[in-house]
């Protein structure tokens, strides 16, 4: 059971002597919104069950309906956790050496981008709309001197703080 007691911010591919400074994901609203629809569907199924039980033929079909409901709940449970998995695996990790972006696009497509702190040339923050301003999330654009010249991290919470943290780490690196 060592995987459950391992370091709080450890990740696959961590280099020796590399310390995790921050692990961040998209703003929680991007998980909460789709999950809300999953909960809403579950609630609708429960309401529908109460409504159907008022009919005279309910007694005859109730056992079949119970089975259908249990299958619907099983599907919703899986769908909910699929959303949680996608949310929790799409991470931006800031360490004392680099920034790593893990992009999980479905269960079988996984892209990893990384920038060495020493290659960072410029960082800009974009807060694009009313909700972004209200909930304090935004996009971070990093100009790099490496093979890929621009990196975009979308919908991150507290983008200004993240930018400052990266700059601080970069200064420390130099």
């Amino acid at each position, binding site marked *: 059971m060592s*995987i459950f007691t391992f370091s709080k*911010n450890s990740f696959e591919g961590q280099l020796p002597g590399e310390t995790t400074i921050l*692990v961040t994901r998209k703003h929680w609203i991007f998980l909460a919104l789709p999950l809300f629809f999953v909960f809403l569907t579950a609630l609708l199924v429960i309401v529908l069950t109460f409504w159907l039980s008022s009919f005279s033929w309910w007694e005859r*079909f109730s056992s079949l309906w119970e*089975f259908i409901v249990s299958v619907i709940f099983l599907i919703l449970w899986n769908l909910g956790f699929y959303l*949680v998995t996608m949310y929790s695996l799409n991470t931006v990790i800031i360490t004392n050496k680099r920034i790593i972006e893990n992009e999980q696009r479905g269960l079988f497509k996984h892209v990893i981008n990384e920038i060495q702190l020493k290659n960072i040339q410029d960082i800009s923050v974009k807060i694009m709309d009313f909700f972004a301003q209200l909930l304090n999330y935004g996009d971070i654009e990093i100009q790099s001197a490496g093979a890929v010249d621009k990196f975009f991290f979308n919908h991150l919470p507290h983008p200004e703080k993240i930018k400052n943290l990266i700059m601080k780490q970069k200064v420390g690196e130099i």
Partner: protein
Amino acid sequence: MKINIFFAVLGTVLAIYSWYTFAIIYHLIRFGVGTKPKRMALIFFIGSFVLFSIAIITYLKIDWVNIIRIK
């Protein structure tokens, strides 16, 4: 050898469901950063097991005779 369509469909659905469940648990444990995703994988596994058991029990409790009978 005669293939029972019902069991073939049931087997396929079970295989897809098991694979999907395994894929989610595998991803959370293998690629999750820190301990939180691992705990989530455990919760997901327990929940899936409980809900799957409930689905099997409710299936076995279906009163087909009562449903099919003509009034």
